[in-house]
């Protein structure tokens, strides 16, 4: 075994309890869980509404979305995601982790890492729309309220990632 190094991150169980308390307060205050991908959808719809209003009026998805959402940017998730950016920045500042860098395994190039991040993001973005939420909105928040769909999505995300891990091992180990 390697020599034990002092960890610079929180103990994961303490982090988990803290995250659970954040999720609990979201449910207690707002009657809903945490999320992330929904805010990006708001940005996409708003961008299309602004840049190509004709297209938004004539395309099924945006038409439906705009009928049920008066102002997509004035949504709970958009405000929450702005908070995530601030909270992450604050934590990184206190822990002296602010630094521009491409994090990757020493065995692969930065370019390869960025290409895979882009492709992975595209998959995740598409899947989050089809699955009605990502790891936070569907899996974690869904599990906390015991949603059947939340458990199914959680099992599929982690199950698939485990199943495919072998094929992408060069990128990570």
């Amino acid at each position: 075994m390697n020599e034990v190094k002092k960890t610079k991150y929180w103990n994961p169980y303490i982090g988990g309890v803290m995250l659970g308390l954040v999720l609990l307060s979201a449910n207690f205050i707002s009657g809903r869980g945490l999320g992330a991908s929904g805010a990006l959808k708001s940005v996409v719809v708003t961008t299309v509404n602004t840049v190509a209003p004709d297209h938004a009026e004539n395309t099924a998805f945006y038409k439906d979305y705009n009928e049920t959402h008066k102002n997509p940017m004035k949504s709970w998730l958009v405000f929450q995601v702005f908070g995530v950016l601030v909270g992450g920045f604050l934590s990184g500042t206190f822990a002296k982790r602010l630094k521009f860098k491409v994090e990757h395994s020493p065995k692969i190039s930065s370019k390869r890492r960025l290409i895979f991040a882009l492709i992975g993001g595209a998959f995740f973005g598409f899947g989050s729309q089809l699955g009605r939420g990502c790891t936070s909105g569907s899996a974690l928040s869904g599990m906390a309220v015991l949603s059947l769909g939340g458990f199914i999505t959680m099992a599929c995300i982690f199950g698939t990632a485990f199943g495919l891990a072998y094929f992408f091992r060069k990128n990570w180990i």
Partner: protein
Amino acid sequence: MGPLVVNEIISPDTNLFLAFLIGIGFGFVLESSGFSSSRKLAGMFYGYDTTVLKVFFTAAITALLGMLFFSLFGWVDLSLIYINPTFLHSAIVGGVIMGAGFIMGGFCPGTAFCAISIGKLDALAFIGGLFIGIVAFTEGYPMFEELYKAEFMGTPTINEFLGLSRGLFSFGLIAAAFGMFWVGEWAEKKFPREEY
């Protein structure tokens, strides 16, 4: 009493402000737990770092237990809490696609926001990818609509589905989580790694 906004104890605008504060807590905890590092997140799938498993399940059971006690004390009306609806097919297919995205990209959307906030450029590429994926879905929506809406089951909870009480299922889940933590600790000893 709770949820506060549904019971009109706080206004919708206050709710949005509190969403911002909740987001700060969310981002702070994610970053402090190491979720701003894709190599740490991906470590879960190779056994060298099971932080994701520990944080994720500890959070889920903490929130779950909290809700159970809040409801027991009459602090929150569980019937007013949003329960994610279950569309069986899209939950499975969407989850599988997200899992593939996770192992390739090393982030999920929430952790990517957290990572970009401290300057990780691979998270920026991931977020660029997220936009591409979301636009592919919204533009091609008519093609996916059938799958998206197939097998709607309402908003069942998993304990109803299994015919168990909320408390009993929660107890089982907590026991299962502790079992997984034990496996995680074992795996980390077996596959040692450096701290990123």
